[in-house]
């Protein structure tokens, strides 16, 4: 399977990947095919062996396609997409219809409501500003639509998992 891996503001490389057996991969990158033994011991951190070279690799999955990969003390912000993922993503988009809830990922205090009920928002447009750990974080709409409900008011403290707002996507003509 081929993945397209992109570094934030950097290269894009195509990485070919075949899983031979659990943890054993044939990987093609930069025009060369190598054998990689990727052991995830103690269910924690990867130990990678490639032609004798050993690397401890820590991967944080940021959701979506983003991965933060730490190798030998260096952190790389990467996105990895494959054919099937693109397909799934587009399928997923079709599935999204009707109002969608957005919940708080950590406890915090609502500093400001940027987009009140009724606002039409673009994908990525700010809706609420939440203060957590003394930092302000803008909570954005995951897609285009209209804010149809707010679960919070300004100045309110929220728990993790609390409803922040509901965004309803525009209705699409059938077959679109």
């Amino acid at each position, binding site marked *: *399977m081929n*993945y397209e*891996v992109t*570094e934030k503001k950097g290269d894009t490389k195509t*990485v070919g*990947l075949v*899983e031979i057996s659990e943890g054993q*991969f044939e*990987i093609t*990158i930069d025009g060369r095919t190598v054998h990689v033994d*990727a052991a995830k011991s103690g269910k*924690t*951190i*990867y130990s*990678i062996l*490639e032609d004798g*070279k050993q*690397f401890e*690799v*820590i*991967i944080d*999955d*940021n*959701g*979506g396609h983003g*991965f*933060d*990969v*730490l*190798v*030998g*003390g*260096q*952190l*790389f*912000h*990467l996105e*990895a*997409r494959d054919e099937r*993922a693109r397909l*799934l993503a587009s399928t997923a988009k079709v*599935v999204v219809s009707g109002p*969608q*809830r*957005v*919940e708080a*990922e*950590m*406890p*915090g205090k609502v500093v400001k409501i940027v987009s009140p009920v009724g606002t039409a928002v673009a994908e*990525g447009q700010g809706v609420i500003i939440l203060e*957590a*750990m003394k*930092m302000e*974080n*803008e*909570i954005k*709409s*995951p*897609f285009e639509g209209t804010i149809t409900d707010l679960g919070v008011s300004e100045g309110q403290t929220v728990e993790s998992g609390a409803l922040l707002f509901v965004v309803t996507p525009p209705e699409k003509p059938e077959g679109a």
Partner: protein
Amino acid sequence: MFKKVLIANRGEIAVRVMRACREMGIKTVAVYSDVDRDALHVRFADEAYCIGPPPARESYLIGEKIVEVAKKSGAEAIHPGYGFLSERGHFVDLCEQEGVVFIGPRGDVMRTMGDKVTARQTMDKAGVPIVPGTTDRLTDDAIARWVRDTGPPVMIKAAAGGGGKGMRLVRNETELTSAIARARSEAKSSFGDDSLYVEKFVEEPRHIEIQILADAHGNAVHLFERECSIQRRHQKVIEEAPGNRISPELRAKMGEAAVAAAKAVNYVGAGTCEFLVDKHDHFYFLEMNTRVQVEHAITEMITGIDIVKAMIRVAAGEKLPFSQDELAIHGHSIEARIYAEDPDNNFVPSPGEILVYRPAAGPGIRVDSGVYQGAKVTVFYDPMVAKLVVWGRDRAEAIERLGRALSEFVVKGIKTSIPFHQKLVHHPKFLEGRYDTGFIEQHMAGGKGGPTPTSAEDSAEARRVAFMMAAVAAYKRDKQRAAEASVVASGGADPWKSYGRRAQMRGGWR
């Protein structure tokens, strides 16, 4: 000696104090907020009592509740750690009224040192050099006159100041009026007191502090200096002991000044005199911290003295068990503070569950930590999760160890400042030991810049591996999702909710 001590703190310093108590055979009492039931300091205590909701002002800052727990549990003394109630004179008074020993100086000493103008007056009288400037609260006119006479650059400072608030640098007389106005308004809103004074601005200042210990029998010693010039936004990042380019003569003079400062106020306990040292090796008293410092551990490493135990001993009325001439510097020590923050994203705090925790270990390494694998870092308190302290026979070895230790220190689940430290310890200016408080701003673009910690070859290799492993991770996740999808299909999970969460993760949270 006390039989039981309450620790009015949380995190690594609470654990640190409990370790000292356990070694001394003293039972420990922890206090915790609702969100800290699972915190490490609770697990290290012999007793633990909940004192309220997560926000510190409703729990860790309520002196009355804490004194009540001390009395209920039979604790004879309270160790405040740093932060929270550690420098609040009224809390010390409260302890005294209620017959509980406060492990630290008296309340009036704290108030003297807490007010910058009073502290400057006191130090000046004791013959300790202060930054040239005024020792009174001034009117706007008086400030303007002083600046006109002395000439800029000057610092306008709030008398009640701290944490960089109510402070303005004036490089040019035209800035003066607005600087005074802004400093007053900030001081008023931050401290409820708009009194100001003015100091000459010290150019290329280095932050050198002297650790002191004093008992109630008139004995006071200093434990040499620490250099804390590596700061990001007035927050210390890396500290070293001994300092760089400090001659034995300067060390002796600063040590004597710090001891004189302590004696001037009949200080009892551990304290730190912070000095600015300019490029001509002139030093000026900045302030005195009347508590144990975060960075006390590096002094412990080079002197072999357990500062926390000494604090407890002198609070119990014992004499200091060593004199100045029994103290010597042995090797070199460096501390790197590990914060739960994202150095690649403007150092925003990074709360969450610590999924993997593998602290550095082995020769010359000490880790003081307030977390463990499975612990949660919440949004409510200081984001420091651990202190990595190294020791070497000399500075070169200490730096080599720090680099090695950072490379093996693994924290997964939250972001930490470890990658930032790795760049820092490879910076040529740091390696040289020639830096001042402007280092991170000037040489590391405020934290965004700095050298790559590995060779170009290793770096390219690491990048290649990262690309491969991003693909492997994506592949594994796709595989797992496919497996989960088939489970969901047969009923169970709520795809509506899980989409919402996933979408949000892609959203504004990082």
